[in-house]
């Protein structure tokens, strides 16, 4: 009983601070006063009418679409290689794939800037996609390994016993089974790219600012309640994606149960 109360308080402390920004985004004041002096939607209007915010939001989405596709492809390939192929140094290869998660992001960002600059890849769409993909690979890789391990190896063996080649069995049996995990991996890499700040601060220039970079600059200089409006939009957006992902995986699990 006590445990439940303590956990309840901890979870409240984890969640409540985030949702505080939603009421604040409807303030009528230009400062963060508490309690709110009055209500207004002007900060949302301000966000909508400000070219810099909208441009950076769209740019973030474009980059995330391509970067997460690249990390999904590479992360899935690596995970399939680890689970299906026998080779020397597998552990080393795995730590390699997880490395971008462990190396301090500031170091990674500066290092990427340093090697992209001579190639004219800084302040470019391609450079940001390549950089964000690096950070998405470990996320997809870890998720795909978990998914591939969860698949009953006997299903592939049965397919091969019935005359399929190993590769044929992989494409016809394993691929349909890991499809939901690939989609989840893509979504998580997508959210990670959408929210990437540190590497982007170094790689983006004046013409390639993403939404987090604009938010970062806003937080560093003058914070106005537009920031609260943008934050509220992001919170609602993230939760929507999250719920969709949960719904999708549970539906996929149900379909799988029905089929078997």
């Amino acid at each position, binding site marked *: 009983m006590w445990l*439940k109360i303590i956990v309840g308080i901890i979870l409240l402390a984890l969640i409540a601070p985030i949702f505080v920004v939603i009421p604040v985004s409807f303030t009528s004041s230009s400062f*963060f006063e508490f309690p709110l002096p009055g209500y207004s939607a002007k900060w949302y209007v301000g966000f909508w009418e400000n070219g810099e915010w909208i441009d950076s939001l769209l740019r973030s989405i474009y980059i995330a679409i391509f970067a997460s596709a690249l990390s999904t492809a590479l992360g899935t390939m690596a995970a399939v290689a680890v689970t299906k192929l026998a080779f020397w140094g597998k552990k080393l290869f795995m730590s390699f794939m997880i490395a971008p998660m462990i190396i301090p992001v500031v170091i990674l960002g500066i290092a990427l800037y340093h090697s992209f600059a001579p190639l004219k890849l800084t302040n470019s769409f391609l450079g940001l996609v390549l950089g964000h993909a690096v950070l998405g690979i470990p996320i997809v890789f*870890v998720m795909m390994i978990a998914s591939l391990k969860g698949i009953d190896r006997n299903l592939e063996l049965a397919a091969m016993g019935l005359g399929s080649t190993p590769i044929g069995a992989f494409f016809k049996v394993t691929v349909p089974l890991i499809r939901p995990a690939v989609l989840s991996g893509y979504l*998580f890499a997508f959210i990670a790219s959408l929210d990437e700040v540190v590497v982007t601060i170094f790689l983006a220039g004046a013409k390639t600012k993403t939404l987090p970079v604009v*938010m970062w600059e806003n*937080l560093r200089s003058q914070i106005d309640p537009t920031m609260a409006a943008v934050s509220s939009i*992001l919170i609602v957006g993230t939760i929507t994606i999250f719920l969709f992902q949960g719904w999708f995986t549970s539906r996929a699990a149900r379909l799988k149960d029905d089929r078997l």
Partner: protein
Amino acid sequence: MATEVKTDPRVPVKRVSPAYRLTRIPGLQWLLLLVPFAYILFLVVFSIIGFFKLSIYDETGFTLQYLTHMFTETVYLQVLWVTLKIAAIVTVISLLLAYPVAYLLVKVESKKWKSLIMGAVLIPFWISLLVRTFAWTMLLQEQGIINKLLISVGILQEPIPLLYNTAGVVIGMTHVLLPYMVLSLYAVMEGIDQRLVQAAQGMGARPWKAFIQIFFPLSLTGVLSGSLLVFVQGLGYFITPALLGGPDNMMISVLIQRNVSETLNWHLASAIALLLFIVTLLVLLISFFFLRNNPVLKEVE
């Protein structure tokens, strides 16, 4: 001249997609390994080596002056010390907060509650880091909600500074890193056979004693792996300390960024980054001995 293709009428013609036919080329499966490997090698390994080279080479050639700076001028070791201290505090607080959450997560039987708790842990995990940091700047400022609340309840007479000092950094970082700790603990706790605890209780142990002597020792792998994950991430943390911290508790990542973006001293930045990298690597190497059965890296051998 039209040639007649002879087909055996008993065998139905199989339509094979070109992508599928590609997989017949021998050795092609090694691309699965090589393509991701090459990507990480070029973008991560070579980039980082290129950047670290700057710490020992400058316009005059090979030099150790930047690296010796790290040890002759106290400011760098001091920043490293502050960083280690903050990462350690954040790790301990996260552990204390995450343990009951993960414990309840394995104990609770109803599926609905389980996914509700999991959701409560995961949603903050995926909400933008900048949004969370921004929320804390509003809550922690002198005229912010927390100070107002504490004064109206009567705990405080006047507002205490919570922002731009160590307290702010620790609160913000704990909030961000807590989910990592919960997930690491949960991954290990889930694998613990609950019957062991029941057996201990069946033989007369009080619930509290059964927990201390059976469950807790079994969960130690999770405690270690979670603490390492949080500590290592805490060492390299940038956004939260940059926005919630002040000049007295500058963390090492912030110092590196300032050297690159503000003072444009790349060689010095590279030397400090190398220091951070080596410390991170040392922590990981030490942990490697404790963590041979990390749930993520296990089983795939």
